[in-house]
């Protein structure tokens, strides 16, 4: 009974969307990279860097939106490192991605410790506040779920539309999808495979950076070590689950958010009958299951992981 009450409460779905927001940015970012043929395992570290950089900028006195922009730029910069190694040099996308994650994470921690050497508890900022959209937020159920969120959540929804429009309705999107499926065809059209791929990885990484910033500037108001906690890897699994489509990415992220919000509530219902770690494991186990379920049918971009050199087949 209680379980049913949870599932129909607006509060629960509002939490689900809150949890989904960074994942929406992350999955969109990952799919933009992968659609262009580059797996970006830097995502986990780029989340950390975006979370740290955005937060630090605001802590040092910049406005919130400037913090978001800085998180995007920092994310894009790490994306550029990954793109530089994997696109023109054609180096291992797996190893480079892990390296970028390690670099972004350690640099963020180093900068945080250097900027704030002696703090006992993490200092706080005033984060984005939920904004009630006039009229819309008064709609029963949907109002509190969708229209009383923070602006970054709306930005995430908007980015789903923007990415979908770019991918399916513009010549750039067509070229981008082609570059991940059949780069030679793009080259034959006289376009630069290298520039398209680099651009996609930088743009996708900027989205990941904003996803990280959501954690410190909207979900919480401070930066903690280990706060990203595998969210980046979950996004990589969700990207496969979403079969590289922005709409399905949104759906997958919200389903995941709902599941995560549900396990937190279930924990309070069941109480101490089960160890709390069982519940905390569920999101990771679910991501693995989601990946296993779709893996066989997954329609991977055909040139994913394959470097491309001009004039050489």
């Amino acid at each position, binding site marked *: 009974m209680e379980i049913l009450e949870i599932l129909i409460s607006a509060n629960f779905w509002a939490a689900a969307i809150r949890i989904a927001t960074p994942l929406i940015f992350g999955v969109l970012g990952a799919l933009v990279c992968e659609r262009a043929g580059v797996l970006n395992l830097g995502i986990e570290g780029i989340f950390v860097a975006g979370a740290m950089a955005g937060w630090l900028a605001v802590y040092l006195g910049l406005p919130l939106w400037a913090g978001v922009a800085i998180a995007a730029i920092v994310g894009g910069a790490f994306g550029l490192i990954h793109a530089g190694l994997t696109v023109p040099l054609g180096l291992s996308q797996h190893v480079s991605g892990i390296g970028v994650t390690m670099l972004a994470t350690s640099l963020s921690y180093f900068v945080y410790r250097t900027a704030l050497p002696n703090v006992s508890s993490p200092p706080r900022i005033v984060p984005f506040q939920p904004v009630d959209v006039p009229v819309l937020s008064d709609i029963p159920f949907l109002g509190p779920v969708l229209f009383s969120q923070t602006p970054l959540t709306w930005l995430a929804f908007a980015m789903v539309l923007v990415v979908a429009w770019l991918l399916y309705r513009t010549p750039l999107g067509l070229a981008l999808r082609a570059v991940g499926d059949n780069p030679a065809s793009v080259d034959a059209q006289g376009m630069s495979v290298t520039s398209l791929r680099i651009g996609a990885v930088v743009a996708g990484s900027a989205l990941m950076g904003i996803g990280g910033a959501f954690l410190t500037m909207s979900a919480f108001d401070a930066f903690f070590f280990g706060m990203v906690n595998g969210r980046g890897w979950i996004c990589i699994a969700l990207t496969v689950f979403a079969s590289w489509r922005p709409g399905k990415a949104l759906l997958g992220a919200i389903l995941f958010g709902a599941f995560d919000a549900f396990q937190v509530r279930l924990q309070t219902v069941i109480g101490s009958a089960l160890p709390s770690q069982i519940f905390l494991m569920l999101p*990771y186990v679910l991501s693995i299951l989601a990946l296993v379920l779709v893996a066989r049918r997954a329609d991977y971009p055909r040139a994913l992981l394959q470097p491309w050199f*001009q004039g050489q087949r």
Partner: protein
Amino acid sequence: MIRFEPRPERNRLLRVAAPIGAAAAALVLAAIPLAFAGAPVLRAYALMFSGAFGSVFALTETLTRATPLILTGLAAVVAFRAKLWNIGLEGQLYAGALAAVAVGSGAIMAPAGVMVPLVLIAGFAAGALLMLGPALLKLKFGADEVVTTLLLNFVVILFVQMMLEGPLQDPMSMGWPQSAPVVDEAVLPPLVERMRLHSGLLVGLVAAAVVHVLFRHTVWGYEMRAVGENASAARYAGIPVSGTLVRVALISGGLAGLAGVGEVAGLKGYLTADLSPGFGYAGIVVAMLAALSPLGAVLAAVFVAAVFVGADSMSRAIGVSSYLADLVVALSLLCVLVGGFVTRYRIRRVTRHHATAGRERA
């Protein structure tokens, strides 16, 4: 216009120089944030060096730190050679540590001659079994092992926490989440008196020699290399690709599990959930710095360990964050990747005329 041209044959000198150059480049690049932090760069590096090698104590500390890194590095070498992307070394290390305390902290009583091999076997088996899952999911369902192994790391650490607050908690720990101590018979004996260096190092060195022989002189090793170099050609040549990958997964996971045994039964004496400061991830760097050579992994592990031990001691002396070590290690990985490129390709400047001609042809 710059062009990359494959080198006709691999230059031996370059192959040795590349990882050394990469490590040096990482140290140089890390000097940039170090300088921004306002630290005296040269003094910081001098302190790091003496902190890692400057005394018998420092040297034993470095070798102690290198012990798990040799084993996780070897685990990555075995997996990456066969192009099985086992990024779950951290989880496998914890699985091995968990098995070591499950067997070695009082459940079984036997003389040391039995107990020590027993905890080693238990740890190897636990790590191997943990890696078996992702390998089978890859072979049966096509699930990418990178993602499954990465996600399993989080599951395993939560499982360890659960065990340390539950069945494996030390009743004498006053509620602290830690296991009961490993019994004396199961302890890996120390190598140097009054130092922390323990015989886990010997386990690592033996493992390196075994992996070296495995790859150089056995059919299994040949099959593993063949699968890594070209899986479809290997299949065509009649090599059992799935069986080989399962074997690789078991060996790789088992080696990472041994790293966990050493940390518990050789160094700490009991298990806590913060046993490893990322030895699993650093193992990837060790393997890449070693250019996937098992013997090279020993040297690479000593380098990475020296960076960590040196940075800790430098941090205590001048107050620079010891995350500098993680930064150097991450930069080493990226630099060695570029270094590998330099050994395989020549960088040629192409004149404009040639470049255009090339483009028209393509």
